[in-house]
């Protein structure tokens, strides 16, 4: 009998073009290459310089999300809001895609959006695929049982030219989540708790497979939120075994196989799950039933506590630097902190269910005086669906801004920034110094916690508003 294999083992083995040896890494085939405007220009420049064509434009999916405006764009003149060099980058992306024959979901496309939101939406992110992008949150697509990871621009060039990467096989880490999440506690809270538990370098060198009853119970959007933040624990990728929930999500989407091909694919995909007795290099166990809404207090996602817990006090230069930057007092609860900005969006929490969670809290309430709340859908499709459901009216009635899709305030490249010194509660994934703007102080939270904080004007437990 063949040895038991993990999902990672199976997907890896299916994509080895040349096996790895002590002297050289494997040549690994890539099924889907996602590209965006920020991490590709230098790669295209190299191809041009050497006269190399893109090997598989058909396996390359392009969009613009990072430095794009979240105000409507109907002509290049509308790009002025993002500044000259970002506008130039966007124009260059259009040019590169045209020249190299790559289909671009640009401003004229109703499928434009954050690269990690549109891949799944289009059904391009499928179980068993290898998926890469010049973006660390490529780990998101692992929710489908795809081996999906971020690469640098040099590697973007490698994939454009050869559809392959030089890779050594990562180690495997099982994160077993037993039980069920209590009411009012979301996938975002769970992944923040996991990062708090294993640390921001806890997954370095590993691919995390999220397993257990609590993970099985999550819908696909929640699973994407979990896998998205694998990189914040230092992991190369996150994975969840494909199951009926995966199939239900994918069925009928534009890029999935149809008819008899679908049946064959579905059967193959379900067979990718880790074998029952497969061994992982490491494993960690978490009890979902013990979880609560989580918020960060420091300058990385591992500096995290329950929304009602007290901020710890440590004597350590890294901790002190974080506290100096955040101007948060150790020993106090996070609710002591008044909020200036609330951001709901990003590839972590910019999907329909995330906006729905925020709207459920906001419904019938107003954003507190002096708080600016920005709601940015993860894609134009999310925007469309949210408007069909009338969510935009709930946001508007509460006094929040409703925008076009994009990365926006997650990294503040397009002019949507938090001013220096202001405190932001954000549903994004990084609370690094300056991430949302120079001197911006970021608290990471779920859409529900963000919305509750907007209403109450301070960091707040969403369960108190229901």
């Amino acid at each position, binding site marked *: 009998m063949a040895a038991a294999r993990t999902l990672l083992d199976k997907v890896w083995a299916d994509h080895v*073009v040349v096996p790895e040896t002590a*002297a050289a*890494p494997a040549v690994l085939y890539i099924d889907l290459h996602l590209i965006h405007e920020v991490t590709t220009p230098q790669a295209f420049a190299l191809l041009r310089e050497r006269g190399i064509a893109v090997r598989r434009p058909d396996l390359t999916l392009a969009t613009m999300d990072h430095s794009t405006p979240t105000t409507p764009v109907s002509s290049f003149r509308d790009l002025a809001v993002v500044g000259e060099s970002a506008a130039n980058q966007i124009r260059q992306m259009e040019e590169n895609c045209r020249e190299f024959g790559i289909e671009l979901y640009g401003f004229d496309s109703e499928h434009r959006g954050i690269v990690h939101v549109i891949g799944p939406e289009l059904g391009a992110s499928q179980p068993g695929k290898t998926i890469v992008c010049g973006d660390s949150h490529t780990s998101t697509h692992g929710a489908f049982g795809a081996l999906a990871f971020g690469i*640098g621009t040099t590697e973007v060039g490698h994939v454009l030219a050869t*559809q392959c990467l030089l890779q050594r096989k990562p180690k495997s880490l099982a994160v077993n989540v037993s039980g069920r999440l209590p009411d009012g506690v979301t996938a975002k809270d769970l992944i923040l708790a996991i990062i708090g538990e294993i640390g921001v370098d806890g997954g370095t060198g590993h691919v995390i497979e999220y397993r257990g009853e609590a993970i099985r119970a999550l819908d696909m959007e929640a699973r994407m939120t979990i896998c998205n933040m694998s990189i914040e624990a230092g992991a190369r990728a996150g994975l969840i075994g494909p199951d009926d929930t995966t199939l239900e999500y994918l069925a009928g989407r534009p890029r999935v196989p149809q008819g008899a091909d679908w049946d064959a694919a579905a059967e193959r995909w379900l067979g990718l799950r880790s074998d029952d007795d497969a061994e992982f290099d490491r494993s960690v166990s978490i009890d979902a039933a013990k979880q609560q809404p989580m918020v960060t207090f420091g300058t990385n996602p591992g500096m995290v506590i329950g929304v009602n817990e007290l901020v710890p006090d440590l004597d350590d230069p890294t901790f002190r630097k974080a506290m100096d930057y955040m101007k948060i007092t150790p020993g106090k609860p996070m609710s002591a902190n008044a909020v200036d900005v609330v951001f709901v969006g990003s590839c972590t929490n910019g999907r329909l269910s995330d906006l729905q969670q925020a709207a459920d809290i906001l419904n019938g309430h107003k954003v507190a005086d002096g708080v600016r709340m920005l709601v940015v859908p993860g894609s134009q499709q999310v925007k469309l669906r949210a408007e069909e459901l009338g969510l935009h009216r709930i946001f508007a009635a509460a006094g929040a801004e409703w925008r076009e899709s994009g990365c926006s305030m997650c990294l503040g490249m397009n002019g949507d920034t938090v001013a220096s010194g202001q405190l932001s509660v954000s549903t994004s994934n990084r609370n690094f110094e300056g991430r949302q703007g*120079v001197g911006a102080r970021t608290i990471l939270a779920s859409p529900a916690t963000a919305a509750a904080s907007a209403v109450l004007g301070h960091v707040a437990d969403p369960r108190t508003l229901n």
Partner: protein
Amino acid sequence: MDALTTLTSRTVVLPIRDIDTDQIIPARFLTTTSREGLGAALFHDLRFDQHGAEREDFPLNDPDARDCRILVAGNNFGCGSSREHAPWALLDYGFRAVISTEFADIFQNNAFKNGLLPIIVDVDTHNWLLAHPGVELRVDVEAAQLELPDGGSVEYPIDAFARYCLTQGIDQLGYLQKHSDAISSYEETHACGG
């Protein structure tokens, strides 16, 4: 890529853990379409105050640290984003090696691809280096050895292929392209993308 075989330099020390790529180079500098000139943005918001003046207490601003080629940083250097602008900025500023107890995976990959050497040392060596900024070190890349001022040396782990590429100045794209026959036959026997 410039080959790197040996390196001798004094160190500059940033005794902070988990220095992320947003600190190494903030996102607002990523709208460039070139890889040149990013040294000016390196550690921008740590190096300069909001008026653009150098922060005196930031180690890189010490006049003695200007020509250092080796950066010693806290554990888990380079976590966060996949932006290759981080190693580009470090190299453009003048660094050729970074020493820590651990590097984030993508940063480490990106560093090697550009000829920036990530050196992983044990906790004791690391603590000693953190406590002695400005000491002169010699790195023998071929031997994977870090030579300390007291005459002692420590070996550091390095992937054989990464070392080979670094010491020979090998371009990995050229190496990958040599496998194009294997790639074509893989494509013929697999439903790629499907």
